[in-house]
């Protein structure tokens, strides 16, 4: 039983960390730009595909793919923010959602046009491909790596936002765009930067997911974006702390749900989302 519980927990945490990598960018972008980006899942997909493309072109070096793929995606993010999203900031919420939704359709088909429609299998990461025995059962080294990466990203984000000059400007602009402008912050540029960074985070998530999921599919973005939405909502829109905790909760909930209440899995997650929205619409860490 203990063995089971330990592994259910580990599975939940690693699942949560995958969601976190996507949710962190989503919530960061929402916190600053106030745009809920459906296409964030597409960055996840693009990250995976581009990492894979680099990996293939560069003779199978995953780390190079992880480095370059997401960089390209952040450039895509820049183009999207600069030439499309910027046109709808002042419009109502449905228009913003619609625009990002249209981008999802476009990205999905683009990927299909470039890489073909089938699922593409991908090789494991050298050095991280084995398993270690934990409580008497094998657990993939790669998942341990992910369990480590998640909090590192969280720490990095915390440091970036709280301790750096850039982070201060981001926080200032998030709370008061106009005043930030008035003290000389180039807010449009900052928005582009934050959007690119968010896209990069999501793309890194996608690239990291590839060795674990083991394949690339055109629909992979949609599946993760819904989980990320749930996480971002229950954590409180725009709250990174909340999103991190939310990711853990959703990951663990689905892991425990699958193990102990298999018929309720999806119902549970959305039930949690509804309950949190009713009980604390601002999320866990809202003040007052």
């Amino acid at each position, binding site marked *: 039983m203990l063995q089971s519980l330990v592994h259910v927990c580990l599975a939940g945490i690693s699942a949560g960390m995958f969601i976190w990598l996507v949710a962190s960018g989503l919530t960061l972008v929402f916190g600053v730009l106030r745009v809920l980006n459906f296409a964030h899942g597409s960055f996840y997909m693009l990250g995976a595909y581009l990492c894979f493309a680099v990996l293939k072109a560069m003779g199978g070096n995953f780390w190079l793919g992880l480095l370059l793929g997401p960089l390209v995606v952040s450039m895509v993010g820049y183009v999207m923010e600069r030439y499309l999203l910027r046109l709808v900031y002042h419009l109502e919420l449905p228009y913003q959602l619609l625009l990002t939704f249209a981008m999802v359709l476009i990205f999905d088909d683009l990927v299909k046009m470039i890489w073909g429609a089938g699922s593409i299998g991908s090789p494991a990461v050298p050095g991280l491909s084995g398993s270690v025995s934990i409580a008497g059962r094998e657990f993939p080294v790669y998942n341990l790596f992910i369990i480590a990466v998640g909090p590192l990203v969280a720490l990095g984000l915390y440091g970036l936002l709280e301790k750096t000059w850039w982070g*201060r400007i981001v926080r200032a602009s*998030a709370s008061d765009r106009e005043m930030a*402008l*008035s003290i*000389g912050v180039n807010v449009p540029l900052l928005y582009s930067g934050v959007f690119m960074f968010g896209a990069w985070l999501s793309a890194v998530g996608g690239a990291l997911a590839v060795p674990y999921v083991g394949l690339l599919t055109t629909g992979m973005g949609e599946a993760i974006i819904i989980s990320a939405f749930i996480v971002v909502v229950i954590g409180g829109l725009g709250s990174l702390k909340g999103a991190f905790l939310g990711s853990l909760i959703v990951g663990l909930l689905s892991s425990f749900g699958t193990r102990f209440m298999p018929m309720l899995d999806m119902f549970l997650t959305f039930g949690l989302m509804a309950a949190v929205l009713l009980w604390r619409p601002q999320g866990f860490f809202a003040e007052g």
Partner: protein
Amino acid sequence: MVLRVDQIDVYYGTAHVLQNISFEVKQGETVALLGRNGMGKTTTLRSIMGLNPPTNGSIRFEGVEICKLAPNVIAKRGVSYIPDDLRIFPDLTCEENLEIAARASGRSGYWTKERIENLFPLLADRRKQKGSSFSGGEKKILSLGRSLMMNPTLILLDEPSEGLAPLIVRTLLETIKKIKGHGVTILLADQNLRFCNEVCDRGYILEKGTVVHGGSMTEIWDNDDVVRRYLVV
């Protein structure tokens, strides 16, 4: 000439909020925009800052046309705006609020953090506290400090006397005078004629989006007719 506003028109949607407004501010002057609530004082300041750009007319700052520039560019040129609701960054500490202004505007000069903390000891005491914990009067001080950190040539000051206890107004007056003493040009918008009279050299009176009168503060103060028509309620 630090600022020359020339025949600007500003619209909010269809509403013609500012109509053909012209005035000017000279180096080192403190100029008041007077007028009752809703007469366009705030909008004037905002359009100079680039937050509500005029549809036509021209705004020249130190001889350069800034009408079509973005607010952040205008800020870098040395214009600083203090809105009436102060808008301290709530998530940032007092210290960060000050530093961010200096670094974002990329301007340096006489005003350093040390000098500002000397001028307002309160800011030194509360250095590490978040902006959201400041009270109304404290925010006013902080917003002044933040503005000075930009070492601006021109400060646009909206409703400085509003909502303050008399004692604090007194302090504020002294502070503005001190700042003025360092050669900073100030354009302030206020309803309070007495307050303006204390610190300002000249004044313009706005009425329903147009400048209806302009002159030295003493002239306005003595002009009973003007005061009665446009200012006193």
